[in-house]
């Protein structure tokens, strides 16, 4: 992409990331690199069954294995067997089963924790697991949600029909009344399949009692050190003030490390009990079954419209797979999606219902987009189906129904108020980059010649809600925490800056971007600003990083903290320069007396005055720092238009993504290069869902592809060079005019891909292709359509 760069401020410039030299040279501090004297290494015996009674568990034989210090099952662990809390009980009558760290008598998914061994090295800990004597009595497994809700086998005895909760939500006019007025009603059912986050750095945790103090330090590969501290205190009873949580370098998360995991609790409890450091690092095989999964919704969606293409109403009924237990925000994920089904479209009625269902599978929770990709997939797919039903161009149908740029702010039928947006501008730019007319002409030629390779064009005009979130809104949704963010900016006596943030990066580039924001306000060079984060000892306040919130919310706190710092500095500078604060202007890092530019004081000099405190005005405290804790006014609403050209080999079912255009509107950009990286990575993950990924189980609940040779993740050779660009419609509810970009690509791209495949095959009678669209799935879909066509002729 090309754009004009303003070099007068670091804001908006694609400067190279501060973080990268360290990463590229391998000078990283992963949790597993932490080596403390006397560390015990934990290994976990996990259930090989989806559902079974534990009829015998004897850990004592493991104790006689070399280097083994301790071994525990649930009985031996006793009171230390802490239960994982769910902090998002979406309805009052939700069923929240006990989720102990080690299973108590029954295992409920493959990978469920049964027992642990601690040894002085990881090798002997792993070996000793084989000595544990355990017998299981297999029980029927609940695998399929549609079967689960009929009753029979229960995952938890107190969840009748395996239902965790029912969540009805109807807004606008009565849907059935609106439907009665419709000329066309299109109904579809889609499986938004289960995905595995598969971050690059496996989970790892070290807990250590700190010498003679009461402090327990926990290093964990987590997205949420601050939230983890609160939850860990509640679960373990360790006083919160004695807990220090550090997220060292963290190699990816995608929501998968937005969690309090049982392994984190076990390591911490056992470090306390044994009085020594305890460490656990998962293997990839463990990760695939024990890290929470994402998605796994069955979506029944119905859209009602007039014959000229005006959308009247939308009805969405979901079955959402919770898995075997509730992790911290498992029930809330589909509810985040609930707000986004109406997306960018104006309509009169919306009827939503979600049933959360327990199954004998790994628990689900947040995964890049968390509810919003599922919603976006469903609405963008059904709009294409409606267009086909009406014989309208799918882009024309979208244009007819979307919120026009002059209509913002606009309150949607779901109740959200979108502050700004310009769908027309993003779409115009995307169409220009895509070459739609030429591709449609090629599509026509291939159709007419009956080419083996057919061409399809997929559209996704998405929006999403991110920047979680106004605390009052979260409260109304029964989420038990707030959505604010904190920043402290300290000017050190030597003129350097410490910027303390409550966000917790794991690959995003916060150290660079936050320095750019502070630099643009303070006039201090980017390289003189150190960003302090992810350590509750050094950065005590924060709500961490997820939901594309760090810039949208954390960025506001940094801006305000910097402004607060300048206001204090202004008073000190005025005193030094013998003028009133109002006579000063702050430009380029200097306070200058208006009308007398010779009289000036650099902010670094002010910091030194604040440090010596020899000559401060009365009532002004020494030291120079600014703080701010900001609760966002609203969510932010990035949007964009994504277009995909899909080639489908009708003979083999193989699909090739030939061209992908993504025009995103994420508001003002702090660092366009980082935005570009987020878009690319997000696209790869969204395309991964469409074409490659999916965690599948057999009828006994055993995972069929829980390793990276069969759970396929696209890599560079599998993807084209993305064509990306941006439009800029600044947010009016966020002081920097920024929105959020962490999840946009993953949310937008999945329906674009599937819409493109269906578009390619629609003349053959194909109206849907299941995800992931593997060659066999596509080929069988074509075969079925051919059979149906033959049947029709006969």
């Amino acid at each position, binding site marked *: 992409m090309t754009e004009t760069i303003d070099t007068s401020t670091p804001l908006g410039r694609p400067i190279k990331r501060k973080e990268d030299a360290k990463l590229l040279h391998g000078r990283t501090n992963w949790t597993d690199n932490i080596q403390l004297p006397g560390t015990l290494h934990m290994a976990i015996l996990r259930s090989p069954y989806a559902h079974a009674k534990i009829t015998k568990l004897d850990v004592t034989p493991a104790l006689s294995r070399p280097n083994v210090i301790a071994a525990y099952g649930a009985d031996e662990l006793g009171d230390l067997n802490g239960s994982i809390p769910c902090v998002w009980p979406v309805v009052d009558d939700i069923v929240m089963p006990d989720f102990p760290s080690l299973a108590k008598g029954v295992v409920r998914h493959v990978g469920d924790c049964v027992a642990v061994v601690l040894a002085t090295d990881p090798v002997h800990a792993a070996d000793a697991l084989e000595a544990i004597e355990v017998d299981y009595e297999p029980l029927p497994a609940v695998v399929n949600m549609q079967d689960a809700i009929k009753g029979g086998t229960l995952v938890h005895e107190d969840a009748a029909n395996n239902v965790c909760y029912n969540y009805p939500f109807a807004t606008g006019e009565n849907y059935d009344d609106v439907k009665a007025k419709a000329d066309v009603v299109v109904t579809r059912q889609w499986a938004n399949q289960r995905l595995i986050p598969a971050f690059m750095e496996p989970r790892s945790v070290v807990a250590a009692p700190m010498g003679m103090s009461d402090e327990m330090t926990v290093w964990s590969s987590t997205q949420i050190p601050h939230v983890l501290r609160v939850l860990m205190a509640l679960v373990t009873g360790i006083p919160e003030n004695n807990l220090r949580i550090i997220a060292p370098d963290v190699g990816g998360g995608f929501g998968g490390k937005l969690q309090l995991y049982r392994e984190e609790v076990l390591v911490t409890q056992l470090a306390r009990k044994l009085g020594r450091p305890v460490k656990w690092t998962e293997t990839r*095989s463990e990760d695939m079954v024990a890290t929470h999964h994402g998605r796994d919704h069955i979506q029944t969606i119905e859209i009602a419209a007039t014959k000229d293409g005006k959308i009247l109403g939308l009805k969405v009924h979901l079955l959402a797979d919770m898995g075997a237990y509730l992790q911290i925000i498992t029930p809330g994920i589909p509810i985040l999606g609930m707000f986004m089904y109406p997306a960018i479209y104006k309509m009169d009625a919306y009827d939503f219902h979600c049933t959360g269902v327990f199954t004998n599978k790994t628990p689900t929770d947040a995964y890049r987009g968390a509810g919003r990709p599922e919603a976006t997939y469903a609405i963008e797919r059904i709009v294409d189906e409606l267009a086909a039903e009406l014989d309208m161009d799918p882009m024309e149908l979208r244009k007819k129904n979307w919120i026009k740029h002059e209509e913002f702010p606009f309150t949607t039928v779901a109740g959200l108020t979108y502050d700004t947006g310009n769908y027309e501008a993003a779409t115009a730019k995307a169409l220009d980059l895509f070459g739609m007319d030429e591709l449609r002409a090629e599509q026509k030629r291939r159709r007419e010649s009956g080419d083996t390779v057919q061409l399809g064009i997929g559209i996704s005009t998405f929006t999403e809600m991110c920047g979680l979130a106004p605390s009052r809104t979260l409260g109304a949704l029964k989420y038990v925490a707030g959505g604010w963010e904190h920043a402290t900016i300290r000017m050190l006596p030597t003129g350097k800056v410490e910027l303390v943030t409550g966000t917790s990066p794991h690959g995003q580039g916060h150290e660079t971007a936050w320095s750019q924001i502070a630099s643009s306000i303070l006039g201090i060079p980017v390289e003189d600003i150190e960003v302090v984060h992810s350590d509750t000892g050094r950065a005590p306040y924060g709500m961490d990083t997820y939901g594309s919130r760090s810039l949208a919310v954390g960025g506001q706190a940094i801006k305000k903290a910097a402004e607060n710092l300048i206001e204090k500095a202004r008073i000190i500078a005025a005193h030094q320069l013998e003028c009133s604060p109002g006579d000063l202007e702050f430009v380029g890092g200097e306070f200058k007396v208006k009308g007398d530019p010779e009289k000036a004081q650099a902010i670094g000099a002010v910091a030194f005055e604040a440090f010596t405190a020899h000559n401060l005005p009365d009532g002004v405290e020494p030291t120079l720092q600014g703080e701010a804790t900001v609760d966002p006014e609203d969510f932010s609403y990035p949007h964009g238009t994504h277009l995909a050209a899909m080639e489908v080999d009708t003979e083999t079912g193989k699909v090739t993504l030939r061209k992908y255009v993504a025009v995103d509107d994420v508001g003002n950009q702090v660092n366009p290069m980082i935005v570009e990286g987020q878009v690319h990575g997000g696209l790869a993950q969204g395309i991964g869902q469409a074409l*490659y990924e999916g965690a599948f189980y057999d009828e006994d609940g055993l995972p069929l592809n829980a390793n990276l040779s069969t759970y*396929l993740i696209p*890599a560079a*050779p599998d993807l084209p060079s993305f064509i990306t660009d941006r439009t800029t419609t600044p947010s009016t509810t966020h002081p920097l005019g920024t929105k959020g970009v962490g999840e946009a690509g993953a949310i937008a791209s999945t329906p674009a891909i599937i819409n493109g495949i269906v578009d390619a095959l629609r003349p053959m009678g194909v109206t849907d292709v299941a995800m992931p669209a593997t*060659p*066999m799935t596509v*080929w069988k879909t074509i075969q079925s359509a051919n059979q149906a066509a033959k049947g029709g002729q006969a």
Partner: protein
Amino acid sequence: MIPAAFDYTRATTVDEALTALASSDDAKILGGGQSLLPVLRQRLNAPELIVDCSAIDEIKGIDAGGDKVTIGAGATHHAVMNDPAVKASVELLAQATETVADPQIRHRGTLGGSLAHADPRADQPPVALALDAEFTIAGPSGKRTVPASEFFIGPFETAVGEDELLVSVAFPKYDGWGSHYEKFNRTAQAWSIVGIAAAVRMDGGKIAEARIGLTNVGGTPVRATAVEQALVGASSMAEIAAAAERASDGIEPFADEDADVEFRKHLARVLTKRAVAKAAGIE
């Protein structure tokens, strides 16, 4: 995961390797480690002894003297696919090897290791089968040779005995033949769902002789002899397509998440048509 404990010895000659193999009832040979290490780490196997053969220089060479190209079992994929003699005289092997995994793996993994591991999904075994390669196996009583048609016995099972070491594979020279390896997989680094190794000798615009090997349509690589015979004399796409219909004759593919039996048979036919057409230069 962490492998179970094992003893380890590193051989620098074939004789040392054979001595080490004879010292244990439960030994495994380590070549480039690209097949064995995942097995050990997942604890699918826990041998008592690992005999590391990666430092045996005498089995790494490629010799094109005479009427054969003889490739040491320890030659890496990278060495094989870039060797001028292989490219000139056994082009199909170079083409198939280029599709193996990724550059890092191709620099570590060895041709001999892949053939001796005999994973049904591996890309080179059907090449060796179709091209009538000859395997030289060293054992306690000396060396013996086994033709490709007798080498592959079942999934992960070959003619190499517990106390033996595959030392080299000799390919007849196919100078002037056209060839193509058609790999069908879901991502660039994934295993073949089906692969087709095709080599043809053209004479006057017609196929005079054809050799076809199929990957991953059964427990061992499969030679598509019915297709080979039907291709003789073919000079058009229609004739190639008709011959390729016989690619699924007699095969007994298994089903997995990527392909059921019906789809694998279908792929065998379609991909054979495409591979032969490309090998023959016929569109």
